[in-house]
């Protein structure tokens, strides 16, 4: 894995969206009812058609990322890793348009489409992470899981820097707005620790989460990890 140069990563579009996960994002509890499932199925087709997943990664030494990796949670996640892999994934702007279109005159379909796109983004991220893990394994290296801006105390204010290092506007068409939002909306950035020893990383948990006071999962004694 070449260092310090952003590199595209081939990611395939999954054949299907994980409807159970989408139903969870949609707000269903437990097994979704037939009406909800039918709605999700109806919206999944146009979304899959509109999705054009792309990913880019960059391998860099921790010392060259000192401005990027801040806060104790990211630090903990990367413990034992002298290097990192930065990753950015997007489903493309077509998905945003499909969500808008499905929501015209039908708010339930709009929200269902948004939930489906979130589930799809997660699936694509998993695929991208698996591909990176394989690249790393080719060099007898190990990766932690993904850790994204907004987890724990790693602020989303680092998004512009992440996007710049990964050259995301040019490589995958992903831009960050002045208020630190990623556009297209269904996009994910993350850092993974890279090490010569097996590493697992560290999940930030709810302690620093911006949503901790009102999180429905937390109230029910669950977590958003499913």
């Amino acid at each position, binding site marked *: *894995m*070449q*260092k*310090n*140069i*952003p*590199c595209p*990563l081939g990611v395939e579009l999954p054949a299907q969206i994980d409807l159970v996960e989408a*139903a969870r994002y*949609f*707000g*269903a*509890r437990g097994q*979704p*009812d037939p*009406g*909800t499932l039918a*709605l999700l199925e109806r919206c999944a087709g146009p979304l899959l058609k509109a999705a*054009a997943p792309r990913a880019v*990664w960059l391998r860099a030494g921790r010392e*060259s990322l000192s401005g990027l990796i801040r806060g104790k949670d990211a630090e903990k996640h990367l413990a034992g890793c002298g290097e990192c892999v930065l990753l950015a994934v997007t489903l*493309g*702007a*077509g998905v*945003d*348009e499909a969500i*808008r*279109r499905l*929501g*015209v*005159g*039908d*708010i*339930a*379909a*709009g*929200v*269902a489409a*948004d939930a489906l796109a979130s589930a799809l983004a997660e699936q694509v991220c998993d695929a991208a992470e698996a591909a990176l893990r394989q*690249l790393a394994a080719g060099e007898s290296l190990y990766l932690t899981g993904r850790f994204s801006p907004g987890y724990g105390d790693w602020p*989303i204010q680092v998004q512009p*820097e992440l996007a*710049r*290092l990964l050259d995301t*506007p*040019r490589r*995958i*068409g992903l*831009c960050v*707005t*002045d*208020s*630190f*939002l990623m*556009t297209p*909306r269904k996009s994910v950035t993350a850092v993974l620790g890279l090490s010569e020893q097996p590493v697992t990383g560290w999940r930030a948990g709810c302690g620093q989460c*911006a*949503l901790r*006071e*009102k999180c429905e999962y937390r109230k029910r004694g669950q977590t958003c990890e499913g």
Partner: protein
Amino acid sequence: MKAEDLFKQDNTLLLDGGMGTMLQAAGLALGEKPEALNLKDPALIESIHARYAAAGSAILNANTFGASAHKLAGTGYTVEQVIAAGIGCAKRAAAPYGALVALDVGPLGELLEPSGTLAFEDAVEEYARIVRAGVAAGADLVFFETFTDLYELKAALLACKENCDLPILASMSFEAGGRTFTGCTVESFAATARGLGADALGINCSLGPKEIFPMAQRLAAALPGDYPVFVKPNAGLPRADGSGYDVTPQLFAHQMKPYRALGLFAAGGCCGTTPDYIRLLNSVFAGCQPGREAHPMPSVLCTPVDCVTVDGITVVGERINPTGKKRFQQAVREGDMNYLLEVAVSQAESGAAVLDVNVGVPGVDEPAVMARAIKAIQSVVSLPLQLDSSNPEALARGLRVYNGKPIVNSVNGERAVLEKILPLCKKYGAAVVGLTLDENGIPKEAARRVEIARRIRDAALEAGIPREDIYIDCLTLTASAQQEDVLATVQALRECKETLGVRTVLGVSNISFGLPCRPYLNTTFLTMAMSAGLDLAIMNPASEEMMAAVYAYNVLTNRDKQSAAYIARYAGRTLPQAAAAAAPSAPAPAEGAEPGGIYAPLMKAVEQGLKGEAAAQTRALLAEKEPLAVVDEALIPALDVVGAKYEKGTLFLPQLLQAASAAQSAFEEIKTAIAKNGAAGGSKGRILLATVKGDVHDIGKNIVRVILENYGFEVIDLGRDVPVEAVVETAREKEIHLVGLSALMTTTLKSMEETIAALHAAGLDCKVMVGGAVLTESYAKQIGADWYAKDAKQSADIARAFFGVS
């Protein structure tokens, strides 16, 4: 070479190769901005340019690709400093070789609306600043490259044309599938960028020579034979492990040989290429003359993702038009874009290929509404649009914000009209419809209509509009009033098509005004017109009779090969039975003793989230009941039942939203009935909603809008990323007393706070409720909100209490 001789060369020119590649090889640090080196290490930049010039590059792209304010943030340098220094480096290197220097311009690094938050005019202004700086620094030409968003390229081209006379080269990057990141096709790029006045078009980056070649062929085919075309491929594809590109200089040269057949104006390299790659191109393109044979140009209308070639009958949806539609007029007056969007989406689903957009309602600011409508429609539908207005200002505003190549409807034979509107079509690269009427009205005879058509065609050609972009409308007259003139329209159409070499268009449905069973007349007239050579049929795509005529015509004229399109549409369908069976569209409301009585079926449909059923039940009820009674007796009680179950936790968001969607469809029936009767809307109160500046996550706000509307409130929805001033201005203008604001992210809560402060500072008598994922009760209080609504249901409760209604 002199700049004015750029397009007079008798040999393919060589461009330069990668700059970033050379800088990385020279040890560019991770995260260092290449453009800053124009000032920090000008000798390095100049030496790279000099190596390209020595290798044979006749045009050197200055190191200004990322010199936008957004991308330079944090360097401490201004756009002007970086560009002046960059052009200076390139000019010093070019001088000994007589090479030209291009101001190299890339994307701004921000996504434009609707996917991003950068407003179109702001993008134009940023590019204007870059272009002015380049001109001041002495650039010989402007080179836009690596664009992936056609809308951004449009902003760049407009800025360039409005600020300088330098030659413009424009290039986009396509992925292996033949589309850019934003889905733009090669053909849409060609039609749009040529129309906007680029002097040469090309393809660069993303792929190697082998992969780009078929796209370059398509680009050349989509442009006239004498139009300059260029390419700048990468050194092949990047290796999976990131260790560079897979094509050597020798292989690159080999893979560039087929391009000789394309008569390129210029060729060079992009990422991964170096002076070695360029040097080997000298022999590849030796003796290669620019230009291709002339070929007939297709008539094209497009958006980035949808390029429609008008070659035979093409359906233009007529329904976005207020004429004779009270509900539509009301929606335009209230600025309710959601209604327009529903009409747009349903026509797209019925099979229209182009949509006509007419928002001319007396008393509204048509130019402003036109611009807003075009943007809104393009955010959900990818069909090309026909901008339908006689107001030049409305056309100008619409043409400016349109993404792609539209068609203008219309000009006519009046000199004053031609002089006003044709230059607009030329500037924005639009096709144009000419109506065969003039100061003296519509001539009865076919020959005189053809005469006017000829005048319009000649004026359009003289204004610089290509022949393939001229469409003539010979005007459909109403059979009930001018029966003896109907055939003149068909005759005139045939003659225009055959003798003037133009495309034709008709508003088909006009034929049947005032007569019963209009589809019979419409379909027969359409068939006559198609037979005479009609290209664009402006009609209702929901009319199955007319759509069937179009599909059948294409089979019988051997256009729809193997009847593929016809079979795809009609296989497995059974023909509708005669009138008797078609009658009752909605079940009669059930009378009876069950709770809710006559309203029970509608309530049940809403509670179960059945959209179609809810609309049908509402139509049936409206035959007997007042619209507002249906709202108060059925819709609100049903929503209350669902809301209570949601609060108790016996049903969840998906069911709540499906009930809201069903109520939404019921409400649409009620609004149509109210508009038709001309009765007062019976609004229970007017509420302004907005997702605050900087935030594009508006789903929560949309849920709130639907729920509030379902409870009978009038909602003015300003959309997402709404500037503070727009909220204050609208609140003042529309006398709003309750405002709802949403923000999803911690970073946009600040905009929410600023919006509330501005509303207070303006001294308006209005209260504010707020919601959003990261908001809390206490934070809402802290930023000055009057209420925190934890969900849509609660926002409705707040509104009901505020306005004192049930």
